[in-house]
């Protein structure tokens, strides 16, 4: 049972982070290969708040996310203002996350707080359990859905499809991109916080480029402009390697080859452009009962 719990918790955390990447990459068309950096920022921040300042756990979690979001402006503002091309923005995020990791690796103490440098930040109170993860996940999904179906979300989609056209329709590029980046960093930060409160320990090595590639993989396989796709793949990508331990070393090699295969044969991803909604219930209902009632009314 504990094992299944662990998979649910880690899968749920991965989904929350992947939803953030989906908003940024899937909907706004901005590539990030540095979300592990935002996870690290949120994780350390919320852990420090709870452990050193005894802030209540939920508030600390949100504060961690908020902190990660604020830090995202450090790269977001200069990169978007100078209209840095998408690929170079991806590089900037990668550089940012590597810089965060290096900084954490080399920082032993901040004031009286012992961050432990490369050994990791230890003895974080353990707060994350299945219930917490499921509640956070439902909230995260709800707000992500609200966001992408709102006017802001439509702006994001417009920006991803054609920046110039979007701008002509009155979309503020800088503001839209920064909003998307903030929200996606917020999600990553919350996910990082949950991770720390689960392991009761945070190490800079958790947040390497591999973590960022995993998140990107979830979104690429899951599909562009879809929340349900990345949700499913983010969970599968955590659960499947657990059951196929013998293939663990091949995992990233297989992901890499799958990237190429998916792009050649199904570039929109598994669930590309499939919006999460309950339409299928109505469709099913109509299929099962709709015709009968229609006939009944005719008769």
């Amino acid at each position, binding site marked *: 049972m504990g094992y299944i719990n662990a998979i649910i918790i880690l899968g749920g955390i991965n989904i929350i982070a992947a939803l953030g990447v989906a908003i940024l990459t899937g909907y706004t068309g901005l590539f990030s290969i540095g979300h592990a950096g935002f996870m690290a920022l949120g994780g350390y921040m919320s852990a420090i708040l709870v452990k050193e300042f005894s802030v209540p756990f939920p508030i600390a979690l949100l504060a961690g996310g908020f902190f990660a979001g604020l830090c995202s402006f450090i790269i977001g503002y200069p990169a978007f203002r100078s209209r840095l091309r*998408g690929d170079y923005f991806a*590089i900037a995020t990668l550089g940012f996350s590597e810089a965060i990791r290096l900084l954490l690796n080399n920082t032993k103490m901040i004031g009286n707080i012992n961050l432990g440098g490369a050994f990791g930040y230890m003895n974080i109170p353990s707060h994350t359990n299945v219930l917490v993860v499921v509640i956070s996940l439902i909230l995260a999904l709800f707000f992500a859905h609200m966001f992408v179906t709102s006017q802001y979300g439509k702006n994001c989609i417009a920006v991803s499809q054609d920046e110039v056209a979007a701008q002509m329709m009155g979309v503020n590029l800088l503001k839209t991109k920064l909003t998307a980046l903030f929200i996606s960093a917020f999600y990553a930060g919350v996910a990082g916080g949950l991770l720390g409160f689960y392991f009761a320990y945070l190490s800079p090595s958790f947040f390497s480029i591999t973590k960022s590639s995993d998140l990107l993989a979830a979104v690429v396989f899951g599909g562009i402009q879809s929340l349900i796709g990345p949700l499913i793949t983010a969970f599968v990508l955590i659960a499947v390697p657990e059951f196929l331990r013998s293939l663990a070393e091949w995992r990233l*090699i297989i992901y890499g080859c799958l*990237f190429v295969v998916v792009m050649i044969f199904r570039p929109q991803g598994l669930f590309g452009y499939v919006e999460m909604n309950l339409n299928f219930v109505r469709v099913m209902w109509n299929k099962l009962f709709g015709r009968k009632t229609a006939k009944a009314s005719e008769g």
Partner: protein
Amino acid sequence: MELFLQQLISGISIGAIYSLLAVGYALVYSVYNFTNWAFDAFMAFGAFMAFTAISSLFLPFWAAMIISIVLTILLSVGTEKLAYSTLRRRKAPRLFMMISAMGVNLAIVNLINKAFGGTFRKFPIEDVQPIFIGNISIGRMDLIAGLISFGVLGLLWLFLYRTKWGLGIRASAIDILSASLMGINNDAVAMLIFTTTGVLSSVAGVFYGIKYAVYPMMGIVTIKAMIASIVGGLGSLPAAIVGSMILGILETMVSGYISSSYRDLFSFLFLILILLFFPNGLMGKSGEEKL
């Protein structure tokens, strides 16, 4: 003063390696409008091939270099055929090309990791005596790395601006469709570009391996090449080279005078500052990147 001069020379040699990488990216980008993310994997592959040729087959350095270049060219062209050419023909959005390239990168780097193990290795080349000029010692490898890198860049320039094939590449960079209407074979241009890319990445990989270490994730240094081309300005090849030199020299100064563990942190801060105050880079004219 001695420290300063020594760091300066070391910085120029690392800057030369960065410029090879930056030029390699710019070459693919200028024609196909996507960043060849697999490039850093080619670099690690080139370094590992040369490493294996010397340490297992006991070949001399120049032979290992040739083997590495040939194999990296094969890998580079093979990647183009397998991962890019179908997307290219279908005129797929560049996002897809980028993801495909990332996939190739992920697969190759982790394959190297699986085959050779993730440890850091010293490049198997005997320590040659540094050259002394007054009190300044210059690493002989630094000198060779710098000279060969500049030599390769010079040859590339001759190739692009003094041959018919180079003209074909430059024409494709302006407009690939019109170029093909004028009788330029697109597939041949792709072969040429990815062959050149293979040479650049292999040379850069071997010399970077000599200077630091050979390990599967060594390709991450290509971030620096990207930063360098943003610093120089996304306008032209000379700007990329100037940016690489500036970044290389500043970096070695930081690691010499402050601490080498903050070197990478510094490069990133430098990028943010440049973006804030010189959004188009130091020499850049526009956001469009062309040859």
